[in-house]
């Protein structure tokens, strides 16, 4: 199975989108004749593996290298840098170029910015005095399909940039990427946004349409009916909860990178030689598509059923000689699914080794107590304990953030106490981390009463599970907690923001309801009357497409919830998710921790 997902079943023609990205890249490589060394930044190299087989690049005479602080070792007379527009990479590039000079190497240098050239980066190249030596271009990769229903803007730091640094570059990027989508699929008529960044992105999108209009004359109906933009800031609670779906757990425990997990080959049934294998995870794998969004224990049952039925077939084949050829054929066909079953048996087993631990149970339990805002003391002591026994700092912070969010902060005494315990346990270098978390409102002093209980009731976030095998609500995702973000999407899709106005005011950031006409764009939040539900019935048999954009990241569990929603009977729409990044609570916090420690935020 390939790492590059099959996109044929996508509700939008994402294949064309990906092919364009392939073509753009190949054109760059082709335009530089002869042998060349293609130096790609490490993050981008991973992203590109979702777009094309890197071996294709080699066919055009490109030698591949990963950009790092080390000097470049190559014989090629031409060096092509393909890097995202980040200042730290510019220093690497400059150093590599400058090191060639004393060696008397005469090379041609090209630098392609992804997705576009940035003054701040070029400034560094100028200061390093290498700008003159470079031929500069752009590779406009704004969006990558991760799967048939998930797009990523590949902006790892969007949340901390928006929330802590005040750098809204990612908001512009998101708007630009959506505008580019509109050129291919038509102007999206309905926009609903919640949060500072999302509202800004909606506004930018409108400006872009004014400055550089999508010509709607020679396009049919817009393919995307509604755009819902949500800031991660609006719901920081959900990513702090432990994910319990198969895919969510894979991401939490093993970390999914560019649609693959890397595990010891022994886990996948291979030799115990310490080698790692990459396992691709996307919906091209039929079984994975079926089980990715299920609770882990249901996954185990499904996999078991499949295995047993094959086993029974096998027994039949062995015991009787009466099968017809076509029956045998059927059996052999089913045998082909064996590697898939085996793969997921192995992975699920590996996950169980984490998830079955009592400490994991305890953890999920305490999360539930925090979500229900019960028993403050128990929660406080639990957090105190894990700090004092020096559990990984992101584990601690995840719970602390959750605790602070649901309680609208901690009483000053507790706040200062826990902060001091953290600094004593993990080192004083985390002072700026605590300061940043406070600035972002993630861990703070209590100043007002918490409205979490109100929000939670109004949106029915805490739901008692009836039958976990046949869930009827998205709350199955977190075993009784329905993710706030997805509840908002449910409301936005059903009736727009209007019905939830009062509630939305309790959550951070402004909200926005836009209706964009076919010929002229009217900017009014009052115009919206019809709901998506009604529109979808206008066209018989047509399912409307809703693009849900998360600025600041989304978890696999939330994507699972959206998939669950669109699969419900009577639902007239499909969801396409676009996110700055697929995150887990850990990856999200880890980057804040690292940047704070380095003093970069």
């Amino acid at each position: 199975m390939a790492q590059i997902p099959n996109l044929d079943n996508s509700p939008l023609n994402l294949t064309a989108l990906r092919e364009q990205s392939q073509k753009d890249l190949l054109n760059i490589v082709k335009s530089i004749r002869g042998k060349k060394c293609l130096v790609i930044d490490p993050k981008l190299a991973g992203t590109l593996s979702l777009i094309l087989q890197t071996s294709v690049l080699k066919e055009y005479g490109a030698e591949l290298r990963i950009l790092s602080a080390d000097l470049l070792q190559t014989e090629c007379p031409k060096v092509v840098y393909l890097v995202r527009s980040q200042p730290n990479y510019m220093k690497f590039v400059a150093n590599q170029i400058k090191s060639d000079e004393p060696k008397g190497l005469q090379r041609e240098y090209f630098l392609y910015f992804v997705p576009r050239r940035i003054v701040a980066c070029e400034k560094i190249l100028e200061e390093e005095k290498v700008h003159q030596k470079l031929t500069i271009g752009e590779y406009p990769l704004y969006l990558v399909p991760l799967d048939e229903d998930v797009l990523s803007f590949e902006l790892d730091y969007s949340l901390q940039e928006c929330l802590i640094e005040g750098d809204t570059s990612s908001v512009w990027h998101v708007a630009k990427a959506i505008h580019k989508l509109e050129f291919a699929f038509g102007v999206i008529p309905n926009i609903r946004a919640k949060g500072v960044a999302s509202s800004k992105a909606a506004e930018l999108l409108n400006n872009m349409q004014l400055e550089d209009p999508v010509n709607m004359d020679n396009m049919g109906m817009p393919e995307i009916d509604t755009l819902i933009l949500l800031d991660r800031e609006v719901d920081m609670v959900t990513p702090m909860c432990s994910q319990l779906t198969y895919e969510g757990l894979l991401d939490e425990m093993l970390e999914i990178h560019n649609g693959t997990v890397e595990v010891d080959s022994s886990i996948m049934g291979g030799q115990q030689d310490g080698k790692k294998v990459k396992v691709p995870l996307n919906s091209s794998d039929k079984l994975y598509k079926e089980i990715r969004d299920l609770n882990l224990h249901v996954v185990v049952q499904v996999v078991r059923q499949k295995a047993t039925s094959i086993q029974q077939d096998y027994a039949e084949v062995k015991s009787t000689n009466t099968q017809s050829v076509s029956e045998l054929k059927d059996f052999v066909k089913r045998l082909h699914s064996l590697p898939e079953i085996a793969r997921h048996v192995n992975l699920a087993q590996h996950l169980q080794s984490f998830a079955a631990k009592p400490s994991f149970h305890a953890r999920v339990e305490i999360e539930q107590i925090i979500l229900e805002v019960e028993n403050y003391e128990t929660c406080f002591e639990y957090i105190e304990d894990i700090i004092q026994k020096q559990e990984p700092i992101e584990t601690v912070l995840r719970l602390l953030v959750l605790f602070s969010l649901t309680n609208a902060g901690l009483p000053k005494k507790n706040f200062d106490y826990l902060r001091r315990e953290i600094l004593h346990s993990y080192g004083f270098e985390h002072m700026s981390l605590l300061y940043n978390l406070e600035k972002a409102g993630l861990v703070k002093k209590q100043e007002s009463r918490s409205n979490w209980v109100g929000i939670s009731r109004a949106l029915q976030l805490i739901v008692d599970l009836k039958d976990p095998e046949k869930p009827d609500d998205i709350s199955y995702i977190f075993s009784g907690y329905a993710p706030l973000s997805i509840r908002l999407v449910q409301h936005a899709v059903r009736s727009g923001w209007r019905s939830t106005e009062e509630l939305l005011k309790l959550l951070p950031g402004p909200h926005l309801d836009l209706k964009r006409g076919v010929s002229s764009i009217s900017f009014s939040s009052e115009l919206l009357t019809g709901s998506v539900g009604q529109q979808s019935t206008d066209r018989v048999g047509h399912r409307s497409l809703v693009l849900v954009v998360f600025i600041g990241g989304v978890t696999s569990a939330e994507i699972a919830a959206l998939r669950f929603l669109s699969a419900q009977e009577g639902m007239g729409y499909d969801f396409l998710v676009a996110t700055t990044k697929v995150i887990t609570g850990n990856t999200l916090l880890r980057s804040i921790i690292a940047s704070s420690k380095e003093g970069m935020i």
Partner: protein
Amino acid sequence: MSSSVSVAAEWDLLSDRFYRRITIYSPLPWSSPATTTTSSSGGGSGGAGRLDLSTHIVAAAPFGGPIAAVRDDSKIVQLHSEPSRRRLLLFSSSGHPLASSPWTPHLPRLHSLAFSSSLNLLALLSDGSLLRFRLPDLKPIPSSSPVPLLPPASGGVADAVFWGGGVAILTEDNRVVVTADIEVDDPHPRELADPGVGEDEQVLCMAVVEPQFVMSGSPEVLLAVGDRVVAVDEDGVQLLGEALEIGPVQKMAVSPNGKLLAAFAHDGRLLVIPTDFSRIIFEYECDSALPPDQIAWCGLDSVLLYWPEVLLMVGPNGDPVQYNYDEPIMLIPECDGVRILSNSSMEFLHRVPDCITSIFGIGSMSPAALLYDARDHYDKQSAKAYDNYQLISSSLPEAIEACIDAAGYEFDVSRQHALLNAATYGLPFCSQFPQGRIQEMCKMLRVLNAVRDPEIGMPLTIQQYKLLTATVLVGRLINANQHLLALRISEYLNLNPEVVIMHWACEKIAASTAIPDIVLLEGLLDKLRLCKGISYAAVAAHADNSGRRKLAAMLVDHESQSSKQIPLLLSIDEQDKALQKSIESGDTDLVYLVLFHIWQKVAVEKNAPLDFFGIINARPLARDLFMTYARHSKHEALKDFFLSTGRLQDAAFLLLKESRELEKNPVASKGSIHVPQVRLIDQAYRLFAETKEHLFESKSAEEHAKLLRVQHNLEVSTKQAIFLGSSVSDTIKTCIAMGNERAAAKVKSEFKVPDKRWYWLKACALATVGNWDALEAFSKEKRPPGGYKPFVEACIDAGQKTEAVKYILKLTNSAEKSEAYERLGMHEEAKAAALQADNNGDELFSRLKFTLGQNALIDTLRDRFSSQGTY
């Protein structure tokens, strides 16, 4: 057929083909009505309206382009009423003056004039330097000082041949220098291989095969030296046509397709040879052995030779045609003929196209001729019209086609009408004929007639027009300041009018120095509105370059694309507005662009960083972006910013960052890095302490500094460099693990470590080093403040089952007990404990049970598959 006869009577037969000479413009005014009266202004070529080709150096651009002239000061001239100072004159092909400017005195002698393909006027001076002038105002570009094309000490220009994109120069010392990029600001002349001209030899004439006709893509220069011809290029010299024994060549011309050469030999023969000199295609013996003044190709079929008063047209067969002129003329080769400029007229000599001979040829009975005749009869209401129609009914389409084509070749509007009328007469009888053809022709003719008007003076033929393309024609009209016509043509042909309006606006600004900004703005906006998506920023940039900054500021306000607007706002010093707009645009890259600009202008050039801080501090996005950038590379500036804007805590954090960086790059000062580090932390502490909101941070910084000192002392006393940089907890653990209880206790009390944490740390440290006795003793010191959990976990983590059980028994919480047993794999005990817990009604716990678990189940599954290749 009377009309047809009169048409054909003007034709001349050369072998089996007809040629005709059309007078396009006559007489040529050479002056505009306005300037004739005020000759003192010197606008015209001498108020009398006269231009004598024989006393001027003249150049004319192909494709009906303009004519440039400068009086030739190497000739003795009688000045009539002209001013004595020489002027550079520019006329349209119809002799209307377009511009003139004084010829800079004291320049080296002018060798020749020529037009480049993008219609810049080139003037080659005898020392080999080049002047270039822009049309239509003859402004020198890029500057009024000539660009040298020849290497020094080459002796100046002996001969030169221009083509559209360049010039080949033969120097006085017989070297060849070619400049193929004559349009760029600093052209790159290249010297070709040495042609090897002997001491006593002379170069008789030269010609150039243009680069587009040469395989190598660089021009080839043909030189007639003595009695041989050589081809010179960059790589070498090739002797041509020895076998042909042509003898000394006096004059040469390369055909329009670059394949043939017309050469006039010393014995009066005109030879036509392929440029590779493989054979003689034909030769003609002239009456005179005197070389002609001019030689030119007329199309690909005939060669024109001009001696004063005689113009001879020689074709491959038959007698040549002779024309007589009593005044000097100039041959201007075109792709489909030759224009003949004289003092009084502009003519066009070309081969009569086949469609026209078929209609107007004497005695022609072609279908087209009959159709034309039928129309004539029809107009006269004669029944013969129908007879004609019957004769040609089967070949009607060709007849219509020919009439339409013929109309295209005519300059005479009434004849165009007659021919098109003939075509439309046939049309109703011929339903299959493509309807668009005639409209297309009408469209083209309307454009052609419009530009041929003497006021415009661009005598384009239809073939030239097709070759030139409508877009280039519009460009030429704009450059001749014929904006209205250019706009009309653009609209008529559905071309984007942006380029016309843009140029108009720029010219308007340049020409309106006296008009106040606000009035001019209205005038400009009126026209700019005509074109959607036009770049106001580009017009504004031009206004700024023309010294009208205020106008530029007003114009740029109308630009809708921020990426164009903002750079311009910066260039006209509207920094505040630029910053404002960039923030509104939401494009952080534009904000950075403005920030760097203002930083350079204010903080660097004016040396006023505080002003810069003031500007950005009022705008959150600008401020935050500056901070983000400065964290990477402008630390000091960032610190200044924080301090000057009262963000003391941020400055303090920056100091802490610096202290950590010291840790990363230990300076060679042995073991005492903590001293500068502590100093920085102390500074940070003081900054935090300035505001009461940061009490926690100030205390922490204080503690941090203290910790570093304590750790330093520990390292000194233990002689182990393992403490610096670790946390308080880790320091305690390390001490205990090293068996140094006293030091640990001291740290505990100095940092007021709570008992609960102390138990976790000590239990963990003792278990890590396997000191179980000490652990047990510790557990018995007193009742642990947080229970026995730390002991249980320390033992389990260390894998000590028996030790762990000791402490599990002391646990009070049943759920915790169960969990601990489970971790040790003691399922029975775990179950028993869990039952107890369940009795306590722990509802959550049971809820989670079905979520997770099922460990055993999947194990069995795994076993089943373990034998197969799984991945």
